[in-house]
């Protein structure tokens, strides 16, 4: 992608040329930083997926040596190529952590947000370019720290991505490194979210009122607030867990713990539930951080490829704001079974049911937007369209989890795993793929290959469902999650255990279908068809009003906005799209 950034710097602003380091490594240009985020987070996504592919082998064929790479994992992790339970737990915890904090969020917010938001609001850059650069490098540091944790004695963190105390407090060194990694990632997110909010509030172009913002920008704004206010409590909790581990305090350690026959040397008096509250205070909003930018991307692409305005733009915006607000007060629906009385469980069940309504509104608005369309089925549209029912399945299966009595049977089973993977994998990841295909020509000036794009799409769609649909069956049967042998020994799992093999094969097939994407992604930046105009998709939003690729400073003329974001097929207009910056009489 090197030449891309090179072109990006032909802008007129810097009289004195920047050195290589300042241009590509310590760049303060939001577009270069966005690309740095993009490449780093895609690598992490792939890495997180690879960890899961190893786990899926163990689940499908428990106790059999892993082919090809089994021998490379080391005697401490997989003697004779056979994975140990300790190692399985490390892989699980790191898969969750990497996917959420190092893969999807940096991709959705760091990459797409950084690249697209300033362009869509007609700004020359983010409000604080230095801070932007710092937030990338702190993220990078956090990522390296997480990776390094695999090299610790005892390996990486192995207490789940949720790191429930006391298990995590008595865990091996890897957990300490995990906590430090998280502190870096939280810091990076805080810097980033402040930057986004200030940018969106302060740097909007003339005429770009809040109700004219593209929905993607709205989704980033709400997301930033979630990150800003939900992350600090986890940072506090992380500090307390570090204290418990390093200074021997008892924030999360109750009195009278006996581990493996040994009385623990803690003074006691702490509470394991305190950790859970602080963790989920972040982690529930976090899941909306995973989904909101995805909804934003889907909305952009749906509007663009239906060639008509989004139906109910206002309700979309209000629903997103309401969703963001509510997401702060539903967290304890992850804790129904920690011994909740009627009053508190009723509160959290009610807020959980309430929060499903804005999701229904958003999805409904997107569905209705399809009515009367003139749909183009390019690759990004296929991914965006598939997102809708996939998110639908994931969201709908959240309902029985959100009601405490049904959660009794489903809690911590594969039903939960199925629920959230439908929202994050064929949901968010599809939306992110869609975003890559959609904005690729703006970034590189070249198109990605459509045939291989569609191949990537259909293969991924089939395989994703192959992996995650059987999980609901296993969950209904009562199979617990995080089982090293996939539940092989349990009587109630006997009828559904054989599904594991199918799911694992689907997962490896899914990996095969990513190969054309990776090749397409890199090759097209050199060999792809050149775009004929700055606006190849004939879109209305401001990012398409820049030169391709956008130079440093973004716009050649200061943009001014005259209308809402999705004025497609306006009656009486010659063209079927009317860009936001087009003056009234033209």
């Amino acid at each position, binding site marked *: 992608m090197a030449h891309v950034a090179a072109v990006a710097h032909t802008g007129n602003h810097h009289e004195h040329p920047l050195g290589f380091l300042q241009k590509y490594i310590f760049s303060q240009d939001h577009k270069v930083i966005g690309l740095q985020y993009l490449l780093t987070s895609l690598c992490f996504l792939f890495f997180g997926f690879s960890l899961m592919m190893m786990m899926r082998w163990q689940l499908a064929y428990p106790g059999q040596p892993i082919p090809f790479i089994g021998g490379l994992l080391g005697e401490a992790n997989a003697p004779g190529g056979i994975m140990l339970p300790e190692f399985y737990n490390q892989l699980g915890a790191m898969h969750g952590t990497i996917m959420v904090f190092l893969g999807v969020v940096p991709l959705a917010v760091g990459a797409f947000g950084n690249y697209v938001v300033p362009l869509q609001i007609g700004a020359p850059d983010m409000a604080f370019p230095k801070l932007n650069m710092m937030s990338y490098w702190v993220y990078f540091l956090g990522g390296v720290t997480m990776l390094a944790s695999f090299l610790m004695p005892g390996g990486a963190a192995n207490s789940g991505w949720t790191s429930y105390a006391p298990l995590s407090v008595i865990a091996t060194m890897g957990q300490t490194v995990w906590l430090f990694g998280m502190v870096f990632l939280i810091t990076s997110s805080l810097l980033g979210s402040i930057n986004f909010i200030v940018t969106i509030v302060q740097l909007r172009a003339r005429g770009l009122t809040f109700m004219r913002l593209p929905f993607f920008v709205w989704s980033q704004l709400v997301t930033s607030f979630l990150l800003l206010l939900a992350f600090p409590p986890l940072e506090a909790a992380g500090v307390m867990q570090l204290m418990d581990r390093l200074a021997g305090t008892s924030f999360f350690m109750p009195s009278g713990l006996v581990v493996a026959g040994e009385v623990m040397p803690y003074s006691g008096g702490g509470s394991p*539930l305190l950790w859970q*509250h602080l963790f989920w*205070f972040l982690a529930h909003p976090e899941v909306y951080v995973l989904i909101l930018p995805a909804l934003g991307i889907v909305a952009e692409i749906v509007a663009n490829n239906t060639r008509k305005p989004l139906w109910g733009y206002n309700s979309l915006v209000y629903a997103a704001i309401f969703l963001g607000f509510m997401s702060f007060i539903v967290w304890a629906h992850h804790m129904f079974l920690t011994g909740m*009385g009627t009053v*508190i469980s009723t509160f959290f069940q009610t807020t959980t049911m309430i929060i499903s309504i804005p999701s229904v509104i958003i999805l409904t608005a997107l569905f209705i937007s399809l009515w009367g369309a003139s749909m183009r089925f390019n690759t990004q549209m296929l991914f965006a369209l598939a997102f809708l029912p996939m998110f639908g399945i994931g969201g709908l299966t959240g309902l029985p989890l959100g009601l405490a009595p049904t959660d009794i049977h489903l809690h911590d089973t594969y039903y939960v795993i199925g629920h959230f993977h439908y929202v994050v994998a064929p949901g968010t990841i599809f939306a992110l793929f869609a975003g890559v295909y959609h904005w690729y020509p703006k970034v590189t000036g070249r198109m990605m290959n459509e045939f291989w794009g569609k191949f990537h799409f259909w293969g991924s769609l089939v395989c994703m469902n192959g992996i995650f649909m059987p999980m609901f069956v296993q969950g209904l049967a009562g199979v617990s999650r995080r089982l090293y042998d996939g539940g092989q020994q349990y009587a109630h799992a006997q009828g559904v255990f054989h599904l594991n093999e199918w799911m694992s094969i689907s997962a490896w097939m899914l990996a095969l279908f990513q190969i054309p994407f990776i090749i397409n992604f890199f090759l097209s930046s050199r060999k792809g068809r050149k775009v004929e105009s700055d606006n190849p998709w004939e879109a209305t939003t401001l990012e398409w009003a820049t030169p391709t690729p956008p130079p440093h400073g973004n716009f050649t003329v200061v943009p001014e906005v005259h209308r809402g974001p999705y004025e497609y097929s306006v009656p009486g207009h010659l063209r079927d799209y009317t860009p936001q910056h087009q003056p009234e009489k033209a």
Partner: protein
Amino acid sequence: MSNTQASNGAHARIYVVVFVALLALTIVTVSLSYLHLSVFPSVLLALIVASIKGYLVSNYFMHLISERRLIYAILVLTGIFFLSLIFLPLSHFHDRVG
């Protein structure tokens, strides 16, 4: 620079008054603690005094009093989440099975 171009001398005088008030309130809160009241009244009084001091610092030193609606909106939102962070876990601990 958000406040109007009032004379800065006047501002400086306000700051000194606030400073003296803060010192006085510090003495108040420390002396209250020597009364060794029972838990509830002592917590209440200490929090009231601290809130007054907080009010003075935020309103004058941080000139929140002349700040814009945008800032207030952010702080109100934060306040709501702050309260839910404090009170929801607390109510869970008070409404437990067993």
